């Protein structure tokens, strides 16, 4: 680990001022410390934001939910409002990492977490994300865990977050505060596809930090759920995952929110699947037909070709268990 200076921000102003001077924010630290130890991350100064007042979970005026950036994954997953309104978020959280890591890691940090790509994490390997221009060892290397959607010639690393998949499905937004003030971005615009600049992962400006994520109000009743497919039963990143939320009224699907994980360089929204569902009546056939589009546009690599089919089946399965067959 490279040496660094450390300051704990007493308030938001102090944090932003340190951030503007190039300080690196640290909250739960589970990704950052891990990557600092691998020397993938080499910040010269850390700004500890853990005591900032960003720990509230509140219902917004319009009936959505705002989760403070420093709410831990454990707290968010156990929060009665989150559980009542958006089971898909709780399921995604509780299927993530381990109990210990969920006690440490925060909602803001979870969205910011960096890929598990083995070549990214190995400083002796070529990686455009870590070291722009050095190449991508994963393209022709071992890429079973890599993305099939949203990839580029520069990078095929999977976004590792489960939570972000649930948030993306629900059209959530990210609230940011920076030296130039506050702004809000849709999550899907906040997280960037690699393109030719895989080193740039978020639409963050210098010194900006996440203050909250907001999940919009959705028509009720809303059934939702998260399915994570992986080799072992716990404590593993997803091979594929599906976040699904359905609003069914009068036997017809009026609203459908679907996103996929484990397959994209960013949490992968599935608008085609959603369009197939809206206006239809739940049935096994509908789930299968809609899920057939889950892997549209996929670019499989040497070792992850199975993910396209697995993704379709994952989406179908979650649609079926969430939507049932009326």
């Amino acid at each position: 680990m490279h040496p660094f200076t450390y300051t704990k921000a007493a308030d938001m102003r102090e944090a932003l001022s340190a951030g503007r001077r190039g300080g690196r924010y640290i909250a739960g630290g589970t990704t950052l410390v891990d990557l600092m130890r691998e020397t993938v991350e080499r910040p010269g100064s850390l700004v500890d934001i853990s005591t900032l007042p960003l720990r509230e979970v509140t219902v917004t005026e319009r009936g959505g939910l705002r989760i403070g950036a420093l709410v831990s994954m454990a707290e968010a997953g156990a929060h009665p409002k989150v559980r009542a309104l958006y089971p898909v978020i709780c399921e995604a959280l509780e299927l993530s990492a381990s109990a210990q890591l969920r006690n440490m890691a925060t909602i803001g940090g979870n969205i910011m977490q960096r890929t598990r790509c083995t070549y990214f994490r190995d400083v002796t390997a070529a990686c455009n994300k870590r070291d722009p221009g050095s190449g991508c060892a994963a393209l022709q290397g071992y890429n079973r865990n890599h993305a099939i959607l949203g990839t580029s010639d520069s990078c095929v690393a999977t976004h590792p977050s489960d939570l972000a998949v649930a948030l993306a499905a629900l059209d959530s937004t990210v609230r940011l505060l920076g030296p130039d003030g506050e702004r809000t971005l849709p999550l899907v615009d906040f997280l960037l596809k690699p393109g030719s600049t895989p080193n740039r992962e978020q639409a963050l400006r210098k010194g900006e930090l996440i203050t909250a994520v907001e999940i919009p109000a959705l028509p009720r009743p809303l059934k939702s759920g998260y399915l994570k497919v992986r080799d072992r039963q716990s404590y593993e990143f997803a091979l594929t995952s599906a976040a699904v939320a359905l609003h069914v009224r009068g036997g017809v699907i009026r609203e459908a929110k679907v996103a996929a994980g484990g397959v994209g360089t960013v949490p992968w929204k599935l608008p085609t699947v959603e369009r197939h569902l809206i206006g239809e009546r739940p049935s096994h056939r509908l789930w299968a037909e809609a899920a057939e589009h889950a892997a549209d546009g996929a670019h499989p690599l040497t070792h992850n070709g199975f993910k396209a089919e697995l993704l379709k089946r994952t989406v179908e399965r979650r649609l079926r268990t969430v939507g049932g067959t009326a």
Partner: protein
Amino acid sequence: MVGGVVTGPPVHAAEDAVAAEVPPGSRVSLTVNGVRRTVTIDNRTSLLDLLREHFGLTGSKKGCNAGACGACTVLVDGRRVNSCLTLAVRLEGAEVTTIEGLAKGDRLHPLQQAFIDQDAFQCGFCTPGQIVSGVGCIQEGHTGSAEEIREWMSGNLCRCGCYVKIERAVEQAAGRK
């Protein structure tokens, strides 16, 4: 570095601005197993290394140093965490409980006793982390069923394969509460 043959040094970007200077350190006061301690440490020191290399509390183990095995689990302010991923410098005022702090004198914590009763360990290396994690699991209330215990204990790997018995031990200790 793609392809077979490589020459030249491994890839490293320009760096080392702080090389050859004394690495930044900080003074931190924290309570470990009820004892207040104040130390000046290298900022890079993890809580795990602070416990092991500075305080001589070697019960917490380093299995992976990456948050992937749970052998280093301790309680910080009552919550179970991976001490390997916790920078000690951040713990000003924190209360830390390690495996060494669970027993009351000669009286073992009920979960420690349950580990003995159930033969819930073999080599014993992951055991401190398993026990501290189990204490957290019980406090969190995730002991409703064997399945729930298994899921909520999955952050602690055991390579000897004592899982079945660890689950029973957690169940035993939870029942006593």
